[in-house]
């Protein structure tokens, strides 16, 4: 009974840690993951995902990541996944030891804590976490089979490869270890081990010649979506895989040692590791992403409060602060109370990556440069490293096309969004605006954006940004934010004569 309480306590502690971590410390991590994918409830989408090795894990992960839309549900999903990984490792350790040995339960926390640390890298995908869980559960399932194990294994390995891709190596090694530990190092088992390795190699080879023929060897060996960037696999991915393989063996070895001291050390180590993981999230990266998360949710006060506490001095964070100030009508009064980096801190040129201009895209949207907002959001979506689509950016793209009367094109994006879980209602509502100019004109945001939009040709120009923004205001005098941005631009360009001339208009 005591041991059950001990196990439940440790697992609950891990889950609680994960909940607090993602709800309170790094909610932007959830938003970041969620905004760079678009899970569709369509047969085509499922077929597309399942057509590659590792596709099942990827599909499951994407299904789960959509729940990151809400912080609480995202944190819950992450807590469940991390506890799931820990329990999977433990279940295999338990099978390997062959007895109810709970003494080294704390060691099973290690891969989950390493995973939290590893996920401080924005490129790490939750797919990897799901990959490991599926692979471990397959080992656990395999260990439960009693008859015709050899035949089952020959069928299971290609299946596990198809489901998890890279996870097949974890599966193959652990199931091999299991067989050798349980059955002993007999001639039969050694022959089977060789067969085992041949089947793994064959599974990979068949993939290269058939359903993965168009993919690179890197994708085939390390997974299509374990890491967001193609051709990159951080060594930590391998170390975590090694940890889930080694821990059951370690538990087996440790089970012969005195338990009280060892267990206490293990618990202490787990706690220390837990603390260490929380410090792996680079403030430079995650503070900026937190600002983006706040801008996305239009939490302008939160942006300014975060900035007051200190923030990275980058154009991205500067853009967030200036936008928040602008939205609160304080841009010209308070902008120099914060870090400034010139005109780029208002609206910067598009930088060809998926992060740098997310806030600029929002600034363009709010200031009334709807075509620029459309363009930035479009290219942000196209810049996603793993070529996935984004509900967030698609929403803005659809809005851009609606404001521009391009209903046919907007409909394509809305159709996609209608097939999602959390954007479906918004898309259904937006669909009712299509081909109805009067209704769009009456929309509180789109109608306003239509009024703001230039009537005549106006080429977007960075060298002439202040005057372009002024002309935007001049075209529709309701657009005070455009005037503030124009004046702020003049200030940042140190053009005081121009500023004084146009500042009068503000009065």
């Amino acid at each position, binding site marked *: 009974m005591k041991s059950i309480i001990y196990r439940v306590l440790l697992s609950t502690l891990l889950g609680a840690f994960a909940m607090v971590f993602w709800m309170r410390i790094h909610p932007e991590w959830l938003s970041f993951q969620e905004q760079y994918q678009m899970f569709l409830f369509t047969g085509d989408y499922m077929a597309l995902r399942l057509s590659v090795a590792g596709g099942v894990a990827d599909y499951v992960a994407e299904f789960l990541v959509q729940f990151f839309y809400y912080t609480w549900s995202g944190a819950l999903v992450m807590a469940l996944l991390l506890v799931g990984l820990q329990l999977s490792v433990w279940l295999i350790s338990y099978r390997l030891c062959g007895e109810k040995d709970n003494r080294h339960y704390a060691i099973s926390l290690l891969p989950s804590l390493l995973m939290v640390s590893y996920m401080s890298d924005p490129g790490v995908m939750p797919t990897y976490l799901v990959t490991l869980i599926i692979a471990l559960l397959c080992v656990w399932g395999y260990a439960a089979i009693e008859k015709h194990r050899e035949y089952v294994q020959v069928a299971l390995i290609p299946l596990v490869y198809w489901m998890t891709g890279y996870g097949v190596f974890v599966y193959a090694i652990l199931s091999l270890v299991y067989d050798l530990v349980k059955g002993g190092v007999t001639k039969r088992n050694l022959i089977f081990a060789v067969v085992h390795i041949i089947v793994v190699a064959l599974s990979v080879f068949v993939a290269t010649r058939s359903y993965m023929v168009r993919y*690179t060897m890197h994708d085939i060996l390390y997974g299509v979506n374990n890491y967001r960037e193609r051709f990159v696999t951080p060594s930590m991915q391998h170390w975590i895989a090694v940890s889930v393989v080694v821990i059951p063996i370690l538990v087996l070895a440790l089970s012969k040692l005195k338990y009280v001291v060892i267990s206490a050390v293990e618990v202490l180590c787990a706690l220390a590791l837990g603390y260490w993981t929380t410090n792996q999230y680079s403030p430079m990266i995650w503070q900026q992403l937190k600002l983006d998360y706040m801008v996305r949710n239009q939490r302008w006060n939160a942006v300014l409060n975060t900035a007051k506490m200190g923030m990275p001095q980058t154009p991205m964070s500067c853009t967030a602060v200036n936008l928040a100030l602008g939205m609160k009508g304080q841009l010209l009064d308070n902008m120099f109370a914060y870090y400034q980096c010139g005109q780029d801190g208002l609206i910067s040129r*598009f930088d*060809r990556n998926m992060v740098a201009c997310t806030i600029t895209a929002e600034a363009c949207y709010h200031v009334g440069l709807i*075509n620029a907002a459309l363009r930035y959001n479009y290219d942000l979506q*196209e*810049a996603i490293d793993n070529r996935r689509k984004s509900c967030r950016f698609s929403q803005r793209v659809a809005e851009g096309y609606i404001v521009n009367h*391009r209903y046919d094109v907007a409909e394509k994006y809305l159709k996609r969004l209608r097939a999602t879980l959390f954007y479906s209602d918004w898309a259904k509502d937006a669909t009712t605006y299509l081909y109805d100019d009067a209704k769009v004109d009456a929309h509180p945001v789109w109608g306003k954006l239509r009024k703001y*939009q230039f009537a005549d040709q106006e080429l*977007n120009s960075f060298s002439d940004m202040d005057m372009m923004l002024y002309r935007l205001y001049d075209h529709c005098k309701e657009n005070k934010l455009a005037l503030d941005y124009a004046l702020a631009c003049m200030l940042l360009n140190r053009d005081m004569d121009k500023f004084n001339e146009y500042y009068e208009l503000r009065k």
Partner: protein
Amino acid sequence: MRISIYIISLALFFAAVGCASRPSEYEKLEVEAPIFPDYAGVTIPARIAPLNFNVDGAEKVWVDVKGSIGGEMSGSGDWAVFDIEEWGELTEKNKGGVLVYDVYAKKDGNWVKYKPFEISVSADELGEYGLTYRRIAPGYEVFSDIGIYQRDIHTYEEEAIIDHRSAPGECMNCHVSNRTDPRQMQIHFRGVHGATLVQVDGQRKLLNTVTDSTIANCMYPYWHPSGNYIAYSLNLIHQCFNESNHKFIEVFDKASDALVLDVRTNQLVLTPAIQTEDFESYPVFSADGKKIYYCTSKAYRGPEECDKIRYDLCVIDFDEETGHTANVADTLIKASAEGKSITHPRPSYDGKWLLYSEADFGVFPLNHPESELWLMNIATGERKLLKNANSDGAESYHNWSVNSKWIVFCSRRLDGVTNRIFITHVDDEGNSTKAFLLPQYNPKEYYENMIQAYNTPDFTLEKVELDIRPFIEELYSDKRIQVTIK
């Protein structure tokens, strides 16, 4: 258990039969069927993939097709679906005739019958295997899902020649074969592993076309009929963005020249006549290989002056022995004087026609809704608007079939933003027919879901063969043959 399986099977069978029978009771309407794509009145080649279509608002569709020369068939389902074999035989039998369509649609539980419409089947063959094209998101500065594909035009089968899965991060463009024959082809790659692939009879080489003596990489290509040369333009391409809702984007060159690559020696042949201070672009060889047609404009500063850039159509003699052009070019059409800009000249392979795009200004007509396709009779200089093939949307990226009877081109007529592939027939007088949208199995679903745009479509005589894995290894090895100057 077994009995219930039989009952379910029988129910499904009868349900299927019920769906697949011609409606006996219907209301006759005197309006044309609201079908997508709009295939009514188009002209098709025999054995093209069946022109399946959707009827707006229909729960079920039944279509009878009768050939004016003979034969008939039916198609049915949630949309009009036709059997490929049966369709092929019917179109073959009715070459030079028409197919008459009777369309029945079930709407709100009741069947209606629309006014019949016709499709003409040309006597002219389209014997090619299919099409090649690039698919890319119609974005601005970044691309993700990009690829060069080939499509069997007699079925719906499409496959990648090379795409983002094999070469992530690489921009690939301008897949061009020699007179539709893929045994001689070239593809550009841009990015970290940039190169120009030239493949002749399965032997491929990867070229680095940047030199100290030229302004940029080789860009828009066109093969010499002998296969010994490729004409290129070198373009410093830029784009600017519009904040009003008229046009989103304008593409312009800051500089451009034309030249010829000797494929045998990997040498660029420079000629002052087509490398002037002005802009020269889109060079193409005449059908006999003795001339180069190209477009030229005065050099204007962009983006402020990009609406002044107007290209004229010129021609210059080409010496196949030396690879050099003559020193003086002739202006065939002084479009700038008419306030127009001509781009993308494409001579027909029989030497009779010159097909080109005409817009109000600029070098990239697909961003211009006013862009239209025109034909020029090379012998007489007479110009003809392809009235039936054009639309209110932009048209460009056109190419000829090997028999010079069919034109494939891109048009933005469907939504104003996304290029789609259309095919039209041109008769001996240079008259075009109403163009038809590239057939798909379920056209409405396909085109509604497809966010990517098509560009640079061309016919391909046979299936393109590119051994992808060894090729990718070569591409990523960064081993290149440096072109030299002749």
